[in-house]
């Protein structure tokens, strides 16, 4: 097991109303087997021991699935490794002596709460606007009475794998939430269950995106590059088609 020394330049901000600034810390003897969040744990234990306030950051599963962690590391959301959440990024990907600049996901629609912690509830509200199939509990028909070809199920699953982390928004120059929204729209419009509400859904979710202050896609592809789940921008093309259909051809 080897270890490295690092310089952290990390964003500190007390709350949404206060001004933030970068703070520098030096960490020595960081085991290369640590995850990025474990490295932050070590920093926080150190700060606590020094009588200072630890850095606030969101996280929970530490398995790359809950979508709660995330920060921008040296300009890249979730850090430099492809298709990896911050909690699954390991320190062996860095070299001794590296400087790491760590900032929160920044976007107009994601207000900063504290340090690296942001409010991503705008994404929830997009789902609340129509990211579901309107079916009450009870009385569903037998699962096998809705046959779905394997390829369709797989395509739907590819889209459904989005963890709602918001990295796509943070990396987009326009602060668009289109990769996230299109993933849900795609999942449901590919499946037979999603057909009845197909048009309202696209219209309502896009309208909510607008209302939340997200921008629009201008094909920068930054979202796809940072998405930890490899969600493809072909979903955005599909969403645009769905949206057009919903506006031009009515409900």
């Amino acid at each position: 097991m080897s270890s490295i020394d690092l310089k952290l330049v990390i964003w500190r901000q007390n709350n949404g109303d206060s001004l933030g600034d970068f703070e520098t810390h030096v960490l020595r003897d960081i085991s290369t087997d640590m995850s990025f969040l474990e490295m932050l744990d070590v920093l926080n234990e150190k700060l606590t021991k020094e009588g200072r306030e630890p850095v606030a950051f969101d996280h929970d599963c530490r398995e790359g699935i809950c979508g709660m962690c995330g920060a921008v590391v040296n300009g890249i959301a979730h850090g430099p490794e492809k298709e990896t959440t911050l909690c699954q990024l390991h320190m062996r990907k860095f070299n001794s002596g590296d400087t790491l600049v760590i900032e929160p996901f920044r976007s107009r629609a994601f207000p900063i709460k504290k340090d690296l912690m942001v409010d991503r509830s705008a994404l929830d509200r997009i789902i609340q606007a129509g990211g579901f199939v309107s079916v009450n509990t009870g009385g569903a028909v037998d699962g096998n009475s809705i046959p779905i070809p394997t390829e369709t199920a797989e395509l739907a699953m590819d889209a459904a794998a989005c963890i709602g982390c918001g990295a796509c928004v943070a990396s987009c120059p326009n602060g668009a939430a289109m990769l996230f929204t299109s993933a849900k729209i795609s999942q449901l419009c590919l499946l037979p269950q999603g057909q009845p509400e197909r048009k309202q859904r696209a219209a309502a979710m896009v309208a909510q995106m607008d209302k939340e202050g997200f921008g629009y896609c201008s094909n920068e592809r930054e979202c796809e590059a940072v998405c930890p789940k490899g969600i493809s921008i072909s979903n955005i093309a599909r969403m645009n088609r769905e949206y057009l259909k919903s506006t031009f051809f009515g409900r």
Partner: protein
Amino acid sequence: MELNPNVPSGPLADKWDTHRFACKLVNPANRRKFRIIVVGTGLAGASAAATLAELGYKVDAFCLHDSPRRAHSIAAQGGINAAKNYQNDGDSVFRLFYDTIKGGDFRAREANVYRLAQVSTNIIDQCVAQGVPFAREYGGSLANRSFGGAQVSRTFYARGQTGQQLLLGAYSALSRQIGKGGVTMYNRREMMDVVVVNGRARGIVVRNMINGAIETYAADAVLLCTGGYGNAYFLSTNAMASNVTAAWRACKRGAGFANPSFVQIHPTCIPVHGDYQSKLTLMSESLRNDGRVWVPKKQGDTRHPSQIPEDERDYYLENKYPSFGNLVPRDVASRNAKEQCDAGKGVGSTRLAVYLDFADAIKRDGEEVILRKYGNLFQMYEKITDSDPMKEPMMIYPAVHYTMGGLWVDYNLMTTIPGLFALGECNFSDHGANRLGASALMQGLADGYFIINTSVAHYFGSTALEKVDTGHEAFTKTAAEVSNRIDRMLKNSSGGPEGKVTVDEVHKQLGKLLWDNCGMARNKEGLEHALAQLPHLRQTFWERVYVPGAGRDINQSLERAGRVADFLEFAEFMIRDALAREESCGCHLREESQTDEHEALRDDTNYSHVSVWEYTGDDQPPALHKEPLQFENVTPTQRSYK
């Protein structure tokens, strides 16, 4: 404490129908007059909140995450069981019932488990209707696989992300109700206490995790869906924020706690590798279909695995259990791994690991086949450990995974506090002393989608509830107690950290104490030692723990401190329960109770019961009550996997 399980009479297969007919209903126009609090929005809570709101009740839902979609349920990998018999391999409701009861080593209530098996089929239909993208066969029908403890293929799955997709399904149903106004969602609120008025649960006290405000909410019924307490051990496969607080606070207000020592240790996890480690990662049980488990025959053999010749390896599971081999159930596999490491045959730098070797399977089936089957798991393993399982064996070790113990509930999922219900992993009801794979997801959704609606209607329909709001003195009093407790935790914050310890340091000590003495194998001496250590640890916590920051602010150290304080109290229940149960069963081996061949020895004469613990005061030992278990439809037999 009165323990009436309220199991309906009559034949097993008819109980649920009989019960549903006997239960009172609430007419649709009256439902909107009732307010229900749902704490926790994992599978159990999200499905319950959505279902009750669809019926017309007013629902307030709470979770400690920034969004309900983050609940720990999201992490489940393997799948969910249902007695669909789609594969025509002889599955039935009764067989799922039987496998679950036997898997739990005959320590669960028959009627509940049977009902679980009955509604399991509706769960799959419900989820399909929501658009959950389950794996499909080429003909378009649903695909299944098999899982430990079953000889039929009844597990439904969505890649390795079944929990994620099921939760997103329930979350979408919940989101729809939030959008419609049927559910008011309170994110980033941590429940700190239950409010009891005239013996009934009438509300909760929460801490707003953004501004630290202590808030109170009143309702006609309270549902706890707050998950399991595996994090008492510090290291576990649970998400970091999983905790016992809600259940423990309910317990202190009079809810009985059942089987607190029943903790499942999962055999195939990535081993601990450093003292900075924050959590353990599960590797799916399915790997044991092709991986062979072994250790070197010689103690302290530090050679690279490739340097250890075949005849110097001990394939201990295959040798000891010739008919089940590497596919013995979780409890057996876990105990044997520990036994090997305790005997000095562990591998890796910490010596607390065994090999899971795919070399033979690769030779037999070819790299491509193995990669197709396990590719994503291999990748995950490689990401964490930097070692490629295609080239050298994986290293695995057991880790705390799931808690079968929980709040005691009757057939209606109601705790011993009227109006307080517990759903999902938070209750004790369906898994006995060991949980089979793919059945926790099933239980969470069964409780939330299909059972609680009947219970809640019956409770409202048969109970005269007085009007209570948050102005009631019980609310102000409970809220004041919560505030005082927070102030006490922050009192060491002044004067800097000199001579003080951090929350994590105390939590790690508690975890080690529990793991060493109340883990996979326990004995009287160790348990008594642990019990004697607890007061010191609690004292260290209250006198020396340093919690930086303020209460009226986002303060993650304070959040952790509150949870650890509750683990420190609750641990006493776990240890006392383990001490009282002088038998081995399921995941729990009492070293004093073994067969001549070192297998777990159950004692049905003395321990065929649920142990229910009642809190009697901070400085008092808890009182033990017993719910006897009756088996009318299955005959408890000694489990053997030889």
